[in-house]
């Protein structure tokens, strides 16, 4: 019963002039998907039958499906005049049930010229950056406004939703953020100590780790982690709700989808990211202290004393100030992408990917802008 076993050969033989003035075609065997390719080629080789009457003899056919029937039907269209069928009626009936000719779609679009194909994407990208910015502003604005618009029995913000999101995006992310930062701190300390050893300045590894972690790395890596972890989740959640018309249902109920869906997530992210950054900083410094002690023999009290000298308030503040901005950007980009999801599962996947990529990019961009800003105001 495998395809190979059921396959029997099909054939067609031309019998010139046997049926009066026309040609006679004798079909035999299985005219099915499996034999369609060979038979299609064979019928093409036979060429267009001459005019006059032809006869199609189906008495030798053992089986036929739409593929086989279509090939014969297509061949028949070539015959100028009348076709008579001989043999089994049921095959003729099947062939005649098929449309005579396939309609081709109207207004088939021609391929665009090379110039257009080259520059159209550039233009589209430019426009999409602008519309993305506008959409982000819209979401930011309506997140604030949407929260005020909820004039039902409840107050503007629903604390339960925010707390739930804080739990999911913050509390549950704590272990991985802690572990990651601990390792990063340890790695920076080890690399720093190794390089500084040749100058006999190993103690400055404390300055290195302290300033680098508190000003830059701590908040940056936490934000990137959260963009991958929570940004993608926000896009997927909002996107799948969009796909199933749940977002439309909210609108129809008079609720602002952005107020209900986006606002709690934005607030939760803005609260959570600074807190996670603090945890990350502590974990990284602990990792650095451990490595400094084990690798360079800097004791913990020495480490702490040196840290107090190296790090001042501005180092801590410079890092922490960035956190809420990055949180907002991650949340807004994720929401923009989530609301762009169309009807298909594929578009959801594409949007989640672009949400993560865009938010990580923008987070790094913002970090750079802050660095320039701090340098300019000598912070």
């Amino acid at each position: 019963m495998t395809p190979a076993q059921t396959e029997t050969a099909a054939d067609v033989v031309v019998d010139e002039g046997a049926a009066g003035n026309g040609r006679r075609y004798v079909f035999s065997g299985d005219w099915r998907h499996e034999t369609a390719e060979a038979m299609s080629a064979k019928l093409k080789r036979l060429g267009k039958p001459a005019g006059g009457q032809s006869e199609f003899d189906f008495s030798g056919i053992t089986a036929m499906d739409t593929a086989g029937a279509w090939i014969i039907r297509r061949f028949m269209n070539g015959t100028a005049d009348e076709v008579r069928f001989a043999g089994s009626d049921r095959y003729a009936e099947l062939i005649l049930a098929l449309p005579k000719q396939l309609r081709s779609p109207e207004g088939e679009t021609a391929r665009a010229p090379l110039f257009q194909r080259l520059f159209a994407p550039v233009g589209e990208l430019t426009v999409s950056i602008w519309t993305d910015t506008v959409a982000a502003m819209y979401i930011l604005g309506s997140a604030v406004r949407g929260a005020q618009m909820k004039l039902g029995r409840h107050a503007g913000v629903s604390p339960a939703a925010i707390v739930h999101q804080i739990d999911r995006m913050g509390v549950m992310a704590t272990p991985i953020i802690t572990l990651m930062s601990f390792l990063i701190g340890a790695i920076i300390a080890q690399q720093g100590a190794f390089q500084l050893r040749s100058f006999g300045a190993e103690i400055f590894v404390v300055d290195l780790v302290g300033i680098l972690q508190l000003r830059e790395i701590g908040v940056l890596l936490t934000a990137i982690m959260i963009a991958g972890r929570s940004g993608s989740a926000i896009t997927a959640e909002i996107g799948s709700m969009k796909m199933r018309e749940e977002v439309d249902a909210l609108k129809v109920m008079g609720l602002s989808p952005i107020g209900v869906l986006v606002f709690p997530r934005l607030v939760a992210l803005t609260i959570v990211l600074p807190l996670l950054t603090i945890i990350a900083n502590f974990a990284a410094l602990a990792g650095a202290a451990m490595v400094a002690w084990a690798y360079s023999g800097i004791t913990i009290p020495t480490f702490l004393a040196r840290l107090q000298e190296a790090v001042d308030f501005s180092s801590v503040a410079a890092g922490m100030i960035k956190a809420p901005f990055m949180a907002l950007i991650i949340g807004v980009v994720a929401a923009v992408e989530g609301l762009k999801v169309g009807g298909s599962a594929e578009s959801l996947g594409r949007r989640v990917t672009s949400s993560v990529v865009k938010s990580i990019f923008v987070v790094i961009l913002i970090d750079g802008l802050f660095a320039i800003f701090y340098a300019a105001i000598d912070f």
Partner: protein
Amino acid sequence: MVQAVIGKQADAGGKGQAVLSVRDLTVGFGENIVLDNLNLEVLRGEILGFVGASGTGKSVLMRTVLRLLTKRSGTIEILGADYDKMGEAERVALDMRLGVLFQHGALFSALTVRENIQVPMREYLDLPQDLMDELARLKIELVGLAPEAAEKYPSELSGGMIKRAALARALALDPDLVFLDEPTSGLDPIGAAEFDELIAKLRDTLGLTVYMVTHDLDSLFSVCDRIAVLGKKRVLVEGTIEDMLACDDPWVKSYFRGKRARSIVREA
């Protein structure tokens, strides 16, 4: 009638032979037995309408027959062969002879309609692209879609078009037995009637056997040769529409002789 023309085993039997026979089938989830010693036969060339209250296990039965769910006990014979006693190659050969129209179409959203139809062709047959394109267009024509629909994605189609496209995909390999899960749900009455006619027409021309789960009384009255009613974990009653109207079971009575059904009977 061109019935059984498509039969891959030449002259495998005419009308009246069982294409699907389910014997003593029991299916359950945990403690909950959904189908208990159920028996059912579908005959070659017929359109069997399958009805039952929501939650009685119509979908469970269809999914069990298609082996998307596992059964507790009983035998299922499709096209004269017991699936449990088959080898890998035979199972693949059998799958080629079945077509399924899922309730929501289940078209692959990342592919166009034409590519959807070509998925089974590509998988099982070794055809050149231009012939496959032609066959896909033929199937699109057969189910009554506009040729423009070929290059559209499922998200760009209306509900009725999705059903037709899904039917075209189910018919891609000229199956012997087609399962339709609520083919007319969500269609307007005119679209539903057209779909019913389409199924009857395809049955006549292609010699299909159709297993149709439906709630549409119009379909049951107009195209179904036989009707089976599922209830109390088994097939309550099966037979023609007259048998249904004569049946004494309270559920069957209220289903076929309720207000909505009566208006159809009056028209008929």
